């Protein structure tokens, strides 16, 4: 395997960690959604890095990351839509207050 891969993987790892940290700690639901995007993009970076410097380089990874971006867009759209509905009903986008799953 090409040793050039490691900076990409490290960057992807750092991005993923930032994303997961934000997703688990931020109160604002919009930031949580953005952090999830960050995690997805870290994965995309991984996929692309492997498609170029992997054991068996091929285009599959890049095409897969395209699909991923599409799904991420769809997910963001659904997430935002849910957030807006929630805000209309509960007047809050604070994640800590969205605890109805308890019941």
């Amino acid at each position, binding site marked *: 395997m090409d040793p050039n891969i490691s900076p990409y993987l490290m960057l992807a790892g750092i991005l993923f960690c930032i994303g*997961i940290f934000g997703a*688990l700690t931020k109160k604002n639901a919009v930031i*949580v959604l953005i952090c999830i995007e960050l995690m997805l993009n870290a994965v995309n970076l991984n996929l692309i890095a492997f498609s170029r410097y992997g054991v068996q380089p091929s285009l599959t990874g890049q095409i897969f990351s395209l699909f991923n971006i599409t799904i991420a867009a769809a997910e963001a759209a659904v997430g935002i839509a849910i957030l807006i509905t929630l805000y209309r009903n509960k007047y809050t986008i604070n994640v*800590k207050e969205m*605890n*109805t*799953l308890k019941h």
Partner: protein
Amino acid sequence: MISDFSNYAWLVPLFPLLAFIALLILGRQMKELGTKIAIFAMSITFIISLMIFISRILNETENYIWDNLRWIQIGDFSLSMGYEVSNLNSLMLLIVSSVGLLVTIYSVEYMKNDERYNVFFSYIALFTFSMLSLVLSINVLQFYIFWELVGVCSFLLVGFWFHKPAAKAAAKKAFIVTRIGDLGLFIAILILFWYMPNHSLDFISIQNAVVTSQLDPSVITWIAILIFIGAIGKSGQFPLHTWLPDAMEGPTPISALIHAATMVAAGVFLVARTYEIFLASPDALLVVSYVGGFTAIFAATIAIVQNDIKRILAYSTISQLGYMMMALGIGISITNGMFHLFTHAFFKALLFLGAGSVIHTVHKQNIHEMGQLSSKMKITTWTFAIGALALIGIPPFSGFWSKDAILTEAYLHNTALFWIGITTAFLTAFYMSRLFFLVFMGKNMNNQEINEYHESPRSMTIPLIVLAALSVCVGFIQTPANHWFEGWLIGQQHEESIQWFVINVSTAVGLLGIMLGYMVYQRRSISSEQLSTQFRWIHRLLVNKYYIDEAYSWILVKPLHGLGMILSMFDEYVIHGLVRLTSNFVVGLNQVSTRLQNGQLQNYGLITLLGLVILALAIAGKRFINVG
């Protein structure tokens, strides 16, 4: 010629049982109908009992036994239920049903204003059923079942006014103290079952086994003494007498029926019924006679200083039951004991109903607060006087003949018991005259109060008159010159010369006691206060009933209570503690897990992440450390 009615004896207990069920169904409604049902059933029972009794007098018949109801069959052992009619049983049937009928009629007025009126009559009917069935029982186990049932009825009726704490306590005491005696009887039954050939428990087999000496003499002694312990409990003999005076908390008709005439006599009846066992054991007879004699004099001394009209009569009952036991214990035959039971049933029921009539009018029970009632309550006064004279044993009243028969027997066979009996007769005369003079004569009443009093209504006085007539008459069936009753009851007559000494002495002490009572409480030429201060410690001893209740409290009740406390603490803190620990642990677990499920998705995510990290570390660690 009247044919033999004995084979219809099963009808006798049936009617009170039906009345009990009917009254139970009626509940609190329809008092009129309830009264009719109760009186009707009791009348039928009385008539059948009377017919059986008369037919047994007129015909020389064998004992009638019906035992076709097989109850238990275990291997070779079988136990049959049924009924037996002998002369002894028919006599008891007559006593129970006649007193029961009169008490029922009397109670109609006495209990008129009680809202649990029908319940009261249903209890009386249940009691009558149990008592009659007890009398008719053919085997010891059947006897024991009804023996317990009359105990339950006594409990229910003593505690009839259960809103009074004293009545509640008295009911419990009556039940528990008699239970101690019942335990003795129960052990006797177990021993009988163990040692009897074929384990048969019916009275006939027991008699045969004892007479043909198939049982070991020491076993017989044990059985006899244990049976007697049962009788001690039921008949209020020393030392289990303490429940009977307290049982006076119940309605007065009940005291007359259960605690004077019938149930307490069941102990005497039990001894008479199993008399062959006692005859086979001189030691047991000795115990019976001395316990009886001691109880007679012991209770009579307490009765002298009591102030409650019913308690005086209760101690008098204990004392008279002591006489009966003494008569049985002397060991000649059951005649004199049963004869005294027969006469006592009538005159003691009369005295209690008379006391009830007084209480119904003045609403008090303390004899020092009564007086001069004779001017207002003529019938009650006269009938009470007859009852008192019969109890004291003045000829020709019935009590004289039966008491004289007992004293004669004692005089001929055991001089110590004779003098105990004579002393008791003197004490009896004294406390009865004290009671009579204080209640009916006396002077310490203000006139205003006395004018409000009036004679009780007719439904209460008629039973009094009937019982008074019986108290006068029934004694003549057995006199020193006429042994008809003895011949009828046990089939043979002991010819004894007339003991004029006994007759004279017993009459003399009776009159002496009345004289003394008259002087102290009517003429007041001897001051009772002076007497009580002069013999202060005796007086105090008697007022406190020889401290028997206190002694029981200290020796038995308090230590048992302490033990109970300790055990309840153990239960509370150790056993219950363990239970609480378990439940608290589960509750705590629950609280922790509910806190985990807080609906915060971020927390869930964090935990998932942590799990993932741990999994990754584990896999990595496995690779480095090379486990497995």
